[in-house]
């Protein structure tokens, strides 16, 4: 079995071979194929620019792997500003000894995810570090996208009266990853919800360009993202427990592990804060998209108690939903 050696990151012959055979071939596009040190392209309009690093362990998990995650995560971060994601950079930090076949599997899923997301990988880098200096494989991606005319989505824009929408079940990613952990693996058919949401957001913006805020609730879960939005916009957010969908498998795993699904990570979810008059139309658009079939209006924005998130429980009482404190699960993304 071929393994990644330190020399694969040295810039020499082996490195060239790796880039040409394993990366360029799979990810081919006119900008990348030039092999210049930077990608050069024309772009017009307001740009969104973001970066994220991916260190998930294990690197392969049900429903995805670190490659798919690295594309979807960055695409979704662009989508939260309403942008249409266009170009991504892709940097690998590889621990020596990683199987070449595993790396190629990751690159293949980068390619597939990029295709689904409608983005191109236009520049990249590879470093190999000594055994123990990294955990198998880390990926960094950065991305740029263009924001359509008239769209202004920001976490600071939530207004009292706005509706809070969510595109589906929560906690799938966090539980799918933890189900594979060494010493913790339990049988579940659950898959990560990892998905690129650029199209979903485009559909939502077509229904209403007035969407006030978008946020993808990843680490820290739905609860943490709602708290961030409430704080940024200085409003309160009231949600209804009965409107938030959680799969039985996630519920069961959460009971076993002592987690609250509200704090478990997602990688294919989008929260939208929408003016009340547009909420139904945006909801209908979400439900038509393959990543929004289970979308719901889960709550609304209020003026009292700025910064607070309050949930009406299934029993009809209400309670505060705070931010996640500390680390629920190490390295889920």
């Amino acid at each position, binding site marked *: 079995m071929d393994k990644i050696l330190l020399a694969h990151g040295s810039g020499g012959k082996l490195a060239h071979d790796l880039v040409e055979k394993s990366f360029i071939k799979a990810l081919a596009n006119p900008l990348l194929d030039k092999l210049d040190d930077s990608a050069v392209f024309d772009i017009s309009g307001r740009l969104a620019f973001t970066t994220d690093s991916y260190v998930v362990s294990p690197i392969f998990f049900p429903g995805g792997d670190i490659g798919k995650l690295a594309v979807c995560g960055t695409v979704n971060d662009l989508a939260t500003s309403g942008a249409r994601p266009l170009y991504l950079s892709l940097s690998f930090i590889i621990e020596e000894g990683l199987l070449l076949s595993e790396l190629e599997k990751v690159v293949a899923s980068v390619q597939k995810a990029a295709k689904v997301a409608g983005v191109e990988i236009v520049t990249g880098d590879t470093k190999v570090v000594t055994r123990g200096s990294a955990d198998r494989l880390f990926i960094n991606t950065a991305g740029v996208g263009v924001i359509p005319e008239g769209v202004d989505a920001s976490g600071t824009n939530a207004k009292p009266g706005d509706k809070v929408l969510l595109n589906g079940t929560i906690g799938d990613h966090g539980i799918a990853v933890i189900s594979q952990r060494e010493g*913790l693996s339990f049988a579940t058919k659950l898959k990560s919800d990892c998905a690129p949401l650029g199209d979903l957001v485009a559909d939502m913006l077509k229904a209403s360009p007035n969407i006030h805020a978008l946020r993808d609730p990843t680490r820290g879960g739905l609860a943490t993202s709602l708290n961030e939005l409430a704080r940024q916009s200085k409003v309160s957010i009231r949600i209804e427990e009965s409107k938030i969908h959680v799969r039985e498998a996630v519920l*069961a795993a959460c009971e076993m592990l*002592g987690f609250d699904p509200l704090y478990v990570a997602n990688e294919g979810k989008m929260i939208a804060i929408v003016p009340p008059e547009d909420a139904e139309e945006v909801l209908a658009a979400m439900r038509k998209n393959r990543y929004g079939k289970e979308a719901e209006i889960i709550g609304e924005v209020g003026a009292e108690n700025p910064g607070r998130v309050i949930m009406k429980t*299934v*029993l009809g*009482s*209400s309670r505060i939903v*705070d931010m996640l*404190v*500390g680390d629920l699960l190490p390295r889920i993304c």
Partner: protein
Amino acid sequence: MKYITEFRSSELGEGLISQIRLRSKKKARFMEFCGGHTVTIFRYGIRQLLPLTIEMVSGPGCPICVTANADLDRAIALSKIPGVIVATFGDMLKVPGSHSSLEKAKASGAEVRTVYSATDALEIAKANPDSSVVFLGIGFETTAPTIAASILQAEEKGIGNYYVLSLHKLCPPVIRALLDSGEVELQGLVCPGHVSAVIGSHPWEFIAKEYGIPCVISGFEPLDVLQCVEMLVKQVEKGQAGVEIAYKRGVRAEGNQIALKLMERVFEPSPARWRGMGEIAGSGLKIREEYKRFDAEANFDIQTAPAIEHKGCICGEILRGVKAPADCKLFARACTPENPVGPCMVSAEGSCSAYYLYGGERG
């Protein structure tokens, strides 16, 4: 039957709440012994739904919270011994001892690993034959049998580098101590569900017989707790005191005999130190002489300075049900889940953490 969503039904919940409101005439204070129940009560806002006649107070049923600083210090000291890997349930990491925490010791280079069961710790021992793996045996009757089983497995498989620091505690003796102190007057006890799954319902009978306090063993879903409260209200209104099981899908009157036998084979009752309550006779479990070679106490020279309590922290009184988190000057100010002063703020089952996270007494 999937055993989760059915027990969170809003319709059935409303029915139970209206039954409780209808029946409850006499003023009654119920203690939920178990931290797991405290969490359910706060997570589902159950206190708000109960009539004014009923007061719920939280008890000492959080194994991490009741661990005395002196014992936390010993666990931390163990982690600093070269060649020792401390394996522990994740909740223990952040709990502050007199001077440090396992999390801080870990950041300074101690080998501390989080596990979900004693069996995982045993696997670590197998994989690291040159190290000594010490599992922190924290918990009530619920976890003690699994830890006993891990010691028996280590013996069977000849794993010589596996040790347990037994800080186990037993529930019935501490309730007796609490009731004898006369500090808190109770008209009902929500008995712990998972402890009872092991010990059964008989060990609680002295509470009904000797102290005249109704007892109902409850599960951990919101409907379980509401049903338990309804059963307690019925006893109170009829002037009766008995032990009933509301958590029938988990608990049998005779308990789990296999688990009890495992526990008895490896452990024997011993005095134990409880935070806020001092030493209580017969309330702990120590490893029997026969299994001494797995006892961390007997095999390591654990050196600690005298334990110090944190100034102003009233975790002890909160655990006795005498005070509520909001009575603490540090609560939500100097003591938060990010920077906990006392263990009740850091443990997932701690009262302060439940009050803080679910907004019981804030703002």
